[in-house]
């Protein structure tokens, strides 16, 4: 049973426009959510996170939104740049554990 779901396997966006990556989860006990970025032949790198007590967190061009009632989070990248082209993984964890549950990833392509 997939507790963290990324239903869009790929997304293509023009440079300068907004990229919106979506993630849904089923476990209401999750209290921390993270986004990771992965380039080919490299390990995932931490991008941004949000606690369940917040509904928004910003870091430069990256903003994560959390809608707990809908069990949905999204990552906004504005403006998108070609260097943002990568696979993005959503992940979630539960209070008092440090095990992350990952989604299946969304491949973002930013074209000129």
């Amino acid at each position: 049973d997939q507790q963290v779901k990324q239903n869009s396997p790929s997304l293509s966006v023009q440079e300068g426009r907004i990229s919106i990556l979506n993630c849904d989860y089923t476990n209401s006990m999750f209290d921390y959510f993270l986004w990771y970025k992965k380039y080919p032949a490299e390990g995932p790198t931490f991008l941004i996170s949000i606690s369940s007590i917040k509904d928004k967190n910003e870091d430069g061009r990256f903003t994560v939104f959390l809608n707990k009632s809908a069990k949905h989070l999204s990552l906004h990248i504005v403006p998108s740049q070609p260097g943002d082209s990568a696979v993005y993984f959503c992940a979630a964890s539960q209070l008092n554990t440090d095990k992350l549950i990952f989604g299946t990833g969304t491949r973002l392509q930013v074209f000129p």
Partner: protein
Amino acid sequence: NAGVTQTPKFRILKIGQSMTLQCTQDMNHNYMYWYRQDPGMGLKLIYYSVGAGITDKGEVPNGYNVSRSTTEDFPLRLELAAPSQTSVYFCASSSQTGGSGYTFGSGTRLTVV
């Protein structure tokens, strides 16, 4: 800063062979993890450790073993390799609970033929 180092980067095994995937971190992190990534399947947790001498199973532990004799090292052992273990393996570490960001190694691509 080395971070998390995994060796080897690539390996081809024959069915039934054994091998150890090495993972070392130099950040003095207590928590270490092994994940595998299959195409289109995201990352699945194999084993994890909350400190030296303590290990526990994740979602997909069958066919694997781990040990944690030091804070720095967390090797993953494959016994009797099977084609289903063909995957990319990632080791990660973190300093605390609460979903703090993991630091990942660059991965080991394993093919079992």
